[in-house]
């Protein structure tokens, strides 16, 4: 299979879907410029030009409404936000209208609008350009919410979004954009609500959202060196959440660590922990652990920023604690941490 970068996979999915469905439009700040939304909309603009790829004024709230109105009469708008943090401005339309449309108007047809929001990370993105809004979006019925962590998933989930009839929010971590992976040529949808087992293991379950799925896999490498076989699960979508895949894993391992790119309180990690406490209680052999952001806004200064984001080692440490291994007994941990540079 070909290998594509994450952003290339998004671009490919977009172009293929637009070829298949003339009703798909793209709208967003700078989607037609030389940067092409970090490359993700460049292919579509080259292929379809200004008749289907629209640069827009700075009007997040109206744009969401405009997309809904276009969807109500047959279009399939894909609205792209260079940072998901700007979507706070569009939440009224997303929550109070798009998410509720089908139910509230008792209609057969919903409004198939797709919002892509990019999550900033690193290089001093700071407090208002690096939030991860998956829990905020996923609290509300009526939406599908996903945060793909691999090129293949980025493609498949976007295809699903552009072919489905439900309003969708896709959150893409900027730090994953250069990640390479196998991606099938055909635009095959990955259904929302279906998680992915990144690696199998019997000792402990690590559920990681978005970038943290990737980090969890790195953590599992390190744990593997110590003979601990972690099962790593990427839920892929937050709404619906694939509870089954998590519970099945828990049944095997009895131990759970959840890693997220956002804060602990009322976040993704809370929901997974709650599912475990509610439906996986019988399997649990030890307390669940959440690996999340420190409870403060994102700082800019480099040392603070570095301390702010959980690393694979943070996950490793949590797993060892859950398994009650002696952390200090794991030789060379520091070195591994230092060696790791990740995809940023």
């Amino acid at each position, binding site marked *: 299979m070909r290998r594509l970068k994450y952003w290339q996979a998004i671009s490919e999915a977009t172009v293929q879907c637009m070829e298949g469905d003339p009703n798909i439009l793209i709208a967003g700040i700078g989607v037609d410029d030389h940067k092409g939304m970090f490359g993700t909309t460049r292919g579509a603009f080259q292929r379809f030009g200004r008749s289907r790829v629209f640069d827009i004024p700075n009007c997040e709230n109206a*744009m969401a*409404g405009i997309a809904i*109105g276009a969807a109500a009469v047959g279009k399939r708008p894909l609205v792209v936000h260079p940072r998901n943090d700007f979507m706070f401005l569009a939440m009224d*339309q997303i929550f109070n*209208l798009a998410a509720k449309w089908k139910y*509230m108007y*008792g209609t057969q047809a919903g409004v198939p609008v797709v919002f892509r929001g990019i999550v900033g990370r690193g290089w001093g993105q700071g407090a208002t350009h690096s939030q991860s809004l998956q829990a905020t979006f996923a609290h509300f019925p009526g939406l599908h919410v996903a945060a793909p962590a691999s090129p293949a998933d980025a493609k498949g989930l976007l295809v699903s979004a552009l072919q489905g009839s439900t309003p969708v929010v896709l959150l893409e971590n900027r730090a994953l954009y250069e990640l390479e992976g196998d991606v099938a040529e055909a635009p095959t949808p990955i259904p929302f609500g279906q998680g992915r087992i990144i690696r199998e293991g019997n000792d402990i379950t690590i559920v990681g959202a978005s970038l943290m799925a990737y980090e969890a896999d790195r953590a599992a490498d390190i744990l593997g060196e110590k003979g601990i076989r972690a099962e790593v699960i990427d839920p892929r979508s937050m709404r619906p959440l694939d509870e089954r895949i998590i519970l099945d894993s828990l049944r095997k391992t009895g131990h759970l660590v959840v890693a997220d790119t956002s804060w602990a309180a009322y976040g993704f990690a809370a929901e997974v922990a709650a599912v475990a406490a509610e439906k996986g209680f019988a399997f649990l052999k030890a307390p669940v652990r959440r690996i999340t952001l420190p409870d403060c806004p994102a700082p800019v200064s480099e040392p603070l920023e570095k301390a702010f984001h959980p690393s694979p080692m943070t996950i490793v440490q949590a797993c060892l604690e859950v398994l009650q291994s002696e952390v200090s007994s794991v030789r060379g941990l520091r070195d591994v941490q230092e060696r790791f540079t990740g995809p940023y």
Partner: protein
Amino acid sequence: MGISKEEILSLLRGMLRIRCLEETLAERYQEQEMQTPTHFSIGQEATAVGVCSALEQQDVIYSGHRCHAHYLAKGGPLLGLVGELYGREVGCARGRGGSVHLTDAGSGVIASSAILGQTIAVAVGSAWAFSLDHSRRVAVAFFGDGAVEEGIFHESLNFAALHKVPVLFVCENNLYSTHSSLAVRQPAGIQIYERARAYSLPSRQVDGNDVAAVFQATREAVEWCRSGRGPYFLEGLTYRWREHVGPLWDYDAGYRTKAEVEEWMARCPIKRLSEQLLRDGLCSEGELRRWREEIQQEIAHAIVVAKSSPFPSVQCLLEGTY
């Protein structure tokens, strides 16, 4: 363009139908069987009827919380509205949406909503889609003077003017937003229709209680939109007779005077037009009475049907979320 006799009679009948229905609903509302916060349009029928009568069926409209008149004027079935207020499956939103969430695909009533200004953008979106499809269809956004203050008003007009989309903005200026007069919400010295000019839009103010004037202004406006020249903005001056939400009068609440309400009631769009038509010999007292009776029958029938039709089944509570 002149207005034919047929047209003018139909304008009157349209207003009468809305008035009769809303008055009946206001009365029935007090039986506490309609459990949905309801904003009556009594006194404001002329803008709804004048505008919608100048549209084609394929054109679409959007509205806000005060949406009954728009729904009916565009052709939304009466039973759909009544059924919705009674929370029945036969309601236009199957009892899920209530008074503020009216919809009827067949007649082009796409959606009304209870969040101020929300549907202004949505109407622009439909109009944008029409223009991308080189279609002749026009979208209309109905909203009040209060919605004009929301940021989305600005963003929507900017986008619409920029892309020259066929949307008609209709601001029903009834001088109040809940209990707040324009004076405590918008700077003096400029009128709402003039503000639209800041977006390079043609705009115009009409007497919102003169249905013929609204109708003619809309015909011109819609022609403008349909011919690809972009959006148009119409402001209709009118007045809400009853309380902001609910069926009662509120002369005495303190935010407006009884004299003011009465002054506007004297300018009742229905009274005005029917007196004129009688004067001009275009209709007779008998005709008016007959209409009223026909309408009352239609209403009574709808209420009976609505009240005897089933509520949504509790088993279907989740249905429609996805």
